[in-house]
């Protein structure tokens, strides 16, 4: 099954990403921000993907702590890595936009701060797994749960603390000519994410199987 699904997802994502610039180009210019606003079509979808991935990692961690099923652990690890990857896209594209829109690269306001904090927690998650030694999967699961707990704060931060960042209503109230390319990008990112997640989970499963094989060989 996976042999078909993974390449299919990656091909679909590739086609969608190739077509995305044309759709974004065809969308109307935002009246005050002009060209820089176009980054929004990649910034917001990657942020959504990162938050989704944090949830995937958190739920997989809960499941792993509760049931100790290694499959859940593989999913958690793969999702945590993808939070870091997509989070990095958010943290790079955000300042590029902010420089033009706000005049500064970075502003210590609620959403930026808490997004950075969430990203750092997942970097710490990866470092813990890498350098924590035996048993670090279980410890990392606790980190994943705390990382997930922050996601709602990221989401609501702009709506609760009125700050510079555009609120989460923007995506829902887009004019149709902008909404089309926007949701196109969102789906491109999600399909790409699903493909990457499955590939990474499979890699991790193979690695675990190899480890087990080594242990058996030694005995």
């Amino acid at each position, binding site marked *: 099954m996976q042999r078909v699904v993974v390449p299919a997802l990656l091909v679909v994502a590739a086609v969608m990403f190739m077509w995305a610039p044309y759709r974004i180009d065809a969308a109307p210019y935002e009246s005050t921000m002009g060209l820089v606003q176009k980054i929004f079509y990649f910034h917001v979808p990657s942020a959504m993907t990162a938050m989704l991935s944090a949830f995937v990692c958190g739920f997989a961690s809960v499941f792993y702590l509760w049931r100790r099923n290694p499959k859940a652990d593989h999913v958690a690890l793969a999702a945590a890595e993808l939070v870091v990857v997509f989070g990095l896209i958010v943290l790079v594209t955000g300042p590029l936009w902010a420089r033009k829109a706000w005049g500064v690269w970075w502003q210590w306001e609620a959403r930026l701060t808490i997004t950075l904090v969430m990203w750092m927690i997942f970097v710490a998650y990866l470092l813990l797994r890498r350098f924590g030694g035996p*048993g670090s999967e279980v*410890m990392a699961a*606790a980190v994943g749960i705390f990382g997930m707990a922050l996601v709602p704060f990221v989401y609501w931060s702009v709506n609760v603390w009125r700050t510079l960042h555009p609120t989460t209503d923007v995506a829902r109230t887009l004019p149709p000519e902008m909404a089309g390319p926007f949701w196109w990008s969102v789906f491109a990112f999600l399909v790409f994410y699903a493909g990457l997640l499955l590939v990474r989970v499979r890699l991790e499963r193979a690695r675990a199987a190899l480890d087990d094989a080594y242990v058996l060989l030694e005995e």
Partner: protein
Amino acid sequence: MAALRAAWLVTQKDLRVELRSRELVYTTLFFAVACVLVFAFAFGSPEEDTAAGVLWVAVMFSGTVALGRTFERERQGETLRALLLSPVERGAVYLGKLLALVALMSGVQLVLVPVVALLFHAPLGRAPALLAALLVAGTLGFAAVGTLFSAMLSRARSRDILLPMLLYPMTVPVVIAGVEGTVALFAREPNLAMAETWLAMLVFFDAVFLTLALWTFGAVMEE
């Protein structure tokens, strides 16, 4: 009820060990004061909100040291396993350790806060109860996450560096709320309502962190 009693026994045990050796109180306190001294030289002419920032950084740094040391002590004496083997709920062990830590950190703050106030001209007498509430709530939030992670890391490799690495990003909400509340309190034109809002935020974070940590502790500390 039995769980709370067990938690209280763990707290008593930790405090008794501490009272006999006084290792953590002295080292943590001296470390905190040394931190403040470095800050005093780093900020030659302190601004209005420096005191609040310095205070919270000193609280966090010294708290990290205390956290690392309490579990190092348990690990060296092989007593952590004994604690976990005892026929009480895991949550009780966690609560007991947490209470002892909060007590220890608060004891250190009794000296630390006047030192900061002296060196950075902070008006301590303005609303002492509110300041104390901010400090206790902040310490509780910090220690709630810290106890969980340092207990869990006591078995990990390179735990000395992993603890602050995990702890600081996770307790950023606590630091923000603590510092902002204290700044509002220490400002030339104090805004007590603002300080109370941040206190409420701290209590909210405490509740979230404590619930999550209580739930996770039992699952993580299984061997």
